[in-house]
């Protein structure tokens, strides 16, 4: 099997997606396009989240925090100064907040940049020592971001959040950046950096014994995840047009965790498959929260039942189908067939 064939598979996949976006944009209704936008943004988040959790094997719960940062940075840069004037109802904003303004691309890049910087800061306490402190520190970090968003109304407008964000996100933006994110992550995975990350996952001591700087491998993975989560947060803000601290609670991260676990931890293809299934299934599962009829009896509406089902799915996968759908395989492995048998 040659490298060329891999490239053909990937290239035809990319063109397929671009063609699909073109068709979707002209023929599909608004509801479907909205779901496709969500799928594109969650693809960005899932493939980058998978890099730290699946490829590097470091359990992290960071997405909601970094997505929130990206969303707030983009929102602050996109909302026009006039719109900001009347939005800040709790306290007057700092003057510099009013003067912030940038175009969409700059806003997205800055969103990613800020998230990356924070990720770098968090890397030092958690990656210098062993143990699973990354999970708890990132979990706490999500709460801290929320606390700041609520307690710092001079910048964030507190619990009211920011509104009237121009709706720049469309399928070309979200789909295009999703393609870039997938290619970037795959290029990292198929390089010495990706090999080092996998080595850390498989056996950290052995990786060190091969001269791998494991701190660097983990930090690169974490910061790359953070960058795309920041960008994804920006896209989300420009899709939803209004954001508030409650949007970025832990459920956000939990959804992504289910996506990558369902798809198969460590597989980028799996992260994409998982996104489509969970985002689609999540829409479908909304019926769980509504009143239901069983044999003529009507159960009352149970808001949150969907979350219970989600958590049971996660536990079930971990106990009985730990490899998820793809295991650690990628798209190209599916085309390999069974030509060569081991030994």
């Amino acid at each position, binding site marked *: 099997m040659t490298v060329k064939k891999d490239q053909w598979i990937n290239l035809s996949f990319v063109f397929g997606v671009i063609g699909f976006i073109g068709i979707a944009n002209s023929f599909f209704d608004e509801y479907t396009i909205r779901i496709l936008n969500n799928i594109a943004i969650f693809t960005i988040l899932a493939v980058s989240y998978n890099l730290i959790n699946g490829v590097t094997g470091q359990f992290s719960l960071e997405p909601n925090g970094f997505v929130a940062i990206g969303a707030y940075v983009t929102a602050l840069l996109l909302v026009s100064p006039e719109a900001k004037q009347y939005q800040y109802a709790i306290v007057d904003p700092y003057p510099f907040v009013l003067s912030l303004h940038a175009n969409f691309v700059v806003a997205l890049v800055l969103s990613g940049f800020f998230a990356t910087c924070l990720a770098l800061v968090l890397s030092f306490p958690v990656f210098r020592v062993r143990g699973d402190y990354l999970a708890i520190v990132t979990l706490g970090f999500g709460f801290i971001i929320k606390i700041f968003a609520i307690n710092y109304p001079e910048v964030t407008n507190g619990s009211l959040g920011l509104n009237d964000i121009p709706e720049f996100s469309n399928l070309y933006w979200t789909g295009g950046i999703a393609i870039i994110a997938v290619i970037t992550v795959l290029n990292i995975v198929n390089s010495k950096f990706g090999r080092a990350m996998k080595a850390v996952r498989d056996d950290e001591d*052995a990786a060190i014994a091969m001269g791998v700087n494991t701190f660097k491998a983990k930090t690169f993975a974490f910061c790359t995840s953070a960058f795309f989560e920041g960008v994804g947060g920006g896209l989300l803000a420009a899709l939803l047009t209004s954001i508030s601290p409650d949007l970025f609670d832990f459920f956000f991260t939990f959804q992504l965790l289910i996506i990558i676990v369902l798809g198969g931890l460590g597989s980028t293809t799996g992260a994409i498959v998982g996104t489509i299934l969970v985002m689609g299934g999540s829409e479908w599962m909304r019926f769980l929260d509504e009143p239901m009829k069983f044999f003529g009896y009507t159960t009352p509406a149970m808001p949150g039942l969907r979350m219970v089902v989600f958590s049971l799915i996660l536990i079930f996968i971990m106990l009985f189908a730990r490899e998820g759908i793809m295991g650690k395989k990628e798209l190209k492995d599916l085309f390999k067939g069974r030509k060569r048998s081991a*030994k």
Partner: protein
Amino acid sequence: MILHVNNVTKNFGGVTAIKETSFSVDRKEIFGLIGPNGAGKTTMFNIITGNYEPSSGEVIFRNEMIHGLKPHLIVRRGIARTFQNIRLFSSMSVLDNVLIGFDFQARYSFFEAISRFPRFIGEEKRIKKRAFEILDYFGMSAFAHDKAVDLSYGQQRKVEIARALATNPELLLLDEPAAGMNPSETEELGNIIKKAREDFDLTVLLIEHDMKFVNQLCDKVLVLDYGKTIFEGKPSDAIQDSEVISAYLGDFHHD
């Protein structure tokens, strides 16, 4: 002299694992570190590789003090190791396992990797070629794309040594390389180590229980017992030394 361990002591809490031990390994020597279980051999390895810091004393490699350096930096200075229970990267192919050894020798940056810059492509080609050379040397290139954990025990041991050699070491530490091998595999391993010493200009420091293996392979041995040196010299003399024999008596049944 390539490695000099000078008066090293290591305490864990109240327990002394190694007590005031000194020895020197000459260039291209095959040096055996032997002794009963719990004698401190693996602790000594972990001190040389930087996993533990000695409580006192120093480790000198090529005339530079290396104790206190981070383990991955010691590897980059030319000390590689294998593990007692083979520790290959289980999800990765044989080739990728060996390529990890080239990790710090591939010269391209993170952004060159993301953008598939020409230097990335050139460097990847270069290290892949060298990885195949090493695999060829061990007769393992046919298995390059197989998962390392699917191989037989003896083959895995070879891959582990190939992986260690990929880091381009001058000193190779082998932690019980013959453990779990049948006599013919052990003999083959001995020949490989001797041959690799010549072809890769290696110095070898090994821990081993199999005295026969040590006797035919090592130029020199150091016998540790409860953290103390009880013998240093030729392996053939070691098995006649009364102190060595009495230290081993309680332990022979482990072998």
